[in-house]
């Protein structure tokens, strides 16, 4: 309970107290004077009766005289006289001294002594008459009287009756006047009392009206202020009742945010259900219910607000959908009887969210750039430039292939295979260089190609998406070049400033020079990626190999290494069980012949070609029936291996399984007009021998 603030209501309390005092005073006085007036009325009545009694006395006396004269029985008039005498005497005594007398209805009535001089004078005069009257009457009252006694009584009565009657008349008038005076006084008191009460009332009324007007003004002011705030505030603001209805006072912005008018009493749950997902709504209702309850700590659940940043869907009048993001906050509002409402604010944060997303994209992009930078930084500049040139070349070829007009389905399939070969080569190069970013991009491209390969009845439109991916790869090469140039210029300027006199490393070297030792690392890394161990021994791979070949041979070598590790070299445990060293060994030997031709021998000590496995794959891929497959010669099986899209691995990864590795090897050898031979022994080795004729000094790669 709040302590009562008396000050504010002081005027009212005093007014009411005054009102009560006036009223009570008037009432008490009224009661007192009224009872006085009632007594006076009795007195007036009895005084009037005295007049009648004096007449009656005379009449009784005359009656007795008459009966006495006629010698009749006069006992009845005597008794009447006795009564009259007694009442008159008692009454006049009561007037004089105060006391009881017989009332008009036969009961005893108390009369108060008349105090006023005027009244006493009248009573004294009356006593002067009544005294002797009583004396002459006393023998008559006994009934035993002489005629003389009767005569003297009658004579006295006749002489004094008028005077006594007059005195009683005077007494009546006196008492009447007294009563009238009191009544006048009473009226005056009443008028004064009522006037005071009325004045008091008017004061109260005036005060009240003034107070009310002041309060109204304050309320009006407050309301105007609230309205102004609610109309100008940029947020949606409203009070949510426990029954989920929206209160009558809400900000104008709320209607803009929810895109609807008159939200008063609208059910918030229903409003939400039309714009958010059902699951979001359920969680939101749970959360709001928790806030309406008294158990959870408001501060400790703020972070759980499921409408903190919520995606909403609005449908406009023309039926168009638009996605927005709203941010709601809820705060408990405590009334006098505990929690009564939640104050809800809503802000449309769509722009902010979109900006954040954009920022995230930009960040991602710059992160990509940084990744790109950190990837290319440790690379051998020559290798990188060679890679970029080779990649550009291959992408150009892919581009040309995409543009080439094609007529029938078979051509489309061939187109996919050709593109696949280039991209797979590019991926292998990237992998060898440790350029993961490009490797990933090429892998994605390959996935699209696999999809095309599995699409029946290809059309030109199916290739459109490839153009976009191709564009992406071109862009990467562009940005690497740009980065590389910038790095070069930084390096140059630093060198220049240091005045070391050394020109940039890049410029001096022959651009087509390979550091073959990086393939040793590539072998170890690729093997590790497959949970295997392997190393490579390179023989006669001189840095000064003819430019026409070095890039092709390098690519060949990369494809062969990937193929060995994916299919040939066994896992360390398997190798150990077969009494082989845990680490697989690859040997590559390059021989330069006198006629200018080259022979390139590549050999791994892995599983060798397994005819059973190749046959099974051929059947599985629907190339042959089981019967046909079992009849295939070893030579035919080897040829099968070089068919586009053929693989013995069912689970493609970045190094194998797309059935393209062998196909590439074959096509590369073809490009160099070379010859390819395969020799193998199950469980022991697999060897590729490649013969390349003398270079013809016409074209140059890149």
């Amino acid at each position, binding site marked *: 309970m709040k302590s009562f603030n008396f000050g504010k209501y002081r005027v009212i309390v005093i007014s009411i107290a005054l009102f009560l005092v006036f009223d009570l005073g008037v009432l008490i006085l009224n009661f007192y004077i009224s009872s006085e007036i009632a007594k006076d009325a009795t007195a007036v009545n009895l005084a009037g009766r005295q007049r009648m009694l004096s007449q009656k006395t005379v009449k009784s006396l005359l009656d007795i005289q008459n009966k006495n004269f006629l010698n009749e029985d006069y006992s009845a008039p005597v008794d009447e006289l006795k009564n009259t005498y007694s009442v008159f005497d008692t009454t006049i005594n009561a007037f004089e001294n105060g006391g009881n007398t017989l009332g008009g209805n036969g009961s005893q009535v108390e009369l108060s002594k008349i105090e006023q001089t005027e009244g006493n004078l009248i009573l004294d005069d009356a006593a002067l008459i009544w005294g002797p009257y009583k004396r002459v009457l006393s023998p008559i009252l006994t009934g035993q009287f002489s005629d003389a006694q009767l005569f003297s009584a009658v004579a006295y009565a006749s002489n004094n009756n008028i005077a006594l009657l007059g005195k009683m008349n005077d007494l009546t008038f006196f008492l009447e006047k007294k009563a009238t005076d009191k009544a006048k006084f009473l009226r005056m008191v009443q008028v004064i009392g009522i006037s005071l009460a009325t004045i008091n009332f008017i004061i109260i009324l005036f005060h009240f009206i003034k107070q009310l007007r002041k309060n109204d003004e304050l309320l009006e002011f407050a309301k105007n202020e609230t309205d102004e705030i609610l109309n100008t505030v940029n947020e949606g603001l409203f009070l949510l009742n426990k029954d989920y209805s929206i209160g009558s006072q809400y900000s104008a912005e709320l209607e803009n945010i929810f895109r609807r008018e008159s939200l008063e009493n609208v059910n918030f749950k229903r409003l939400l259900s039309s714009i958010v997902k059902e699951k979001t709504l359920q969680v939101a209702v749970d959360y709001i219910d928790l806030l309406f309850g008294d158990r959870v700590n408001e501060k*400790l659940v703020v972070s759980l607000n499921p409408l903190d940043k919520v995606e909403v869907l609005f449908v406009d009048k023309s039926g168009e959908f638009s996605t927005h993001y709203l941010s709601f906050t809820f705060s408990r509002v405590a009334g006098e009887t505990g929690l009564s409402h939640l104050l809800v604010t809503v802000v449309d944060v769509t722009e902010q969210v979109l900006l954040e997303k954009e920022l995230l994209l930009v960040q991602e992009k710059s992160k990509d750039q940084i990744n790109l930078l950190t990837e290319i930084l440790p690379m051998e500049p020559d290798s990188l430039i060679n890679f970029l040139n080779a990649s550009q070349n291959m992408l150009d070829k892919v581009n040309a292939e995409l543009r080439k007009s094609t007529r029938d389905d078979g051509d489309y399939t061939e187109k996919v295979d050709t593109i696949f070969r280039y991209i797979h080569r590019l991926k292998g190069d990237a992998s060898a260089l440790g350029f993961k970013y490009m490797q990933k991009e090429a892998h994605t491209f390959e996935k699209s190609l696999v999809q095309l390969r599995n699409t029946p009845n290809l059309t030109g439109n199916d290739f459109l998406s490839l153009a976009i991916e191709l564009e992406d790869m071109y862009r990467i090469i562009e940005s690497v070049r740009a980065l590389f140039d910038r790095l070069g210029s930084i390096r140059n300027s630093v060198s220049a400033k240091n005045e070391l006199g050394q020109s940039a490393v890049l410029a001096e070297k022959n651009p087509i020079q390979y550091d073959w030792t990086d393939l040793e690392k590539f072998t170890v890394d690729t093997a590790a990626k497959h949970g295997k161990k392997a190393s490579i021994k390179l023989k006669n791979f001189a840095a000064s190999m003819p430019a026409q070949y070095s890039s092709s041979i390098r690519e060949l070598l990369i494809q062969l290494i990937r193929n060995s590790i994916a299919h040939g070299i066994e896992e360390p445990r398997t190798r150990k069980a077969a009494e082989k060293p845990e680490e697989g060994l690859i040997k590559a030997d390059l021989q330069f012949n006198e006629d200018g031709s080259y022979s390139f021998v590549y050999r791994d000590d892995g599983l060798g070609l397994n005819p059973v496995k190749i046959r099974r794959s051929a059947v599985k891929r629907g190339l042959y029936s089981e019967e046909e497959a079992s009849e295939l010669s070893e030579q035919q099986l080897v040829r099968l291996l070089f068919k586009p899209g053929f693989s013995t691995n069912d689970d493609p990864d970045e190094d194998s399984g797309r059935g393209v590795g062998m196909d590439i090897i074959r096509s590369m050898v073809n490009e160099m007009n070379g010859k390819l031979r395969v020799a193998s022994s199950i469980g022991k080795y697999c060897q590729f021998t490649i013969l390349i004729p003398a270079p013809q000094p016409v074209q140059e790669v890149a």
Partner: protein
Amino acid sequence: MKLMIVDDSNIIRKKIERVMTNEGQSFNVVGSAKNGKEAIALFRQTEPDVVTMDLTMPEMDGIECISQLISMKNDTLILVVSALSDKATAIEALKQGAHGFLCKPFSDGELQSALSELIEKV
């Protein structure tokens, strides 16, 4: 105030214990459990006033554990300490009877102020 810690991560349990046993704390760590089942047993034994509760735990998860603890002693103060990845689960835990939520990861100060906020407003 007797405090019980429920979390399947040893690191989190140790952290809460370390922060809340510092001097000047109105808490007395009476035990820690690594899943809901252990928590129920430990609760019977130590009768704590305040519990910090993880949600995803083996054996018995936080939500089930909260509803059992509340049915045993309904004025137990429970602070859910969990990652913010699933708001709906955390809200479910509050519906079952928890009083507040602290998001993982948290700093020493955040933990202290969350627990004092929890016991201040009962």
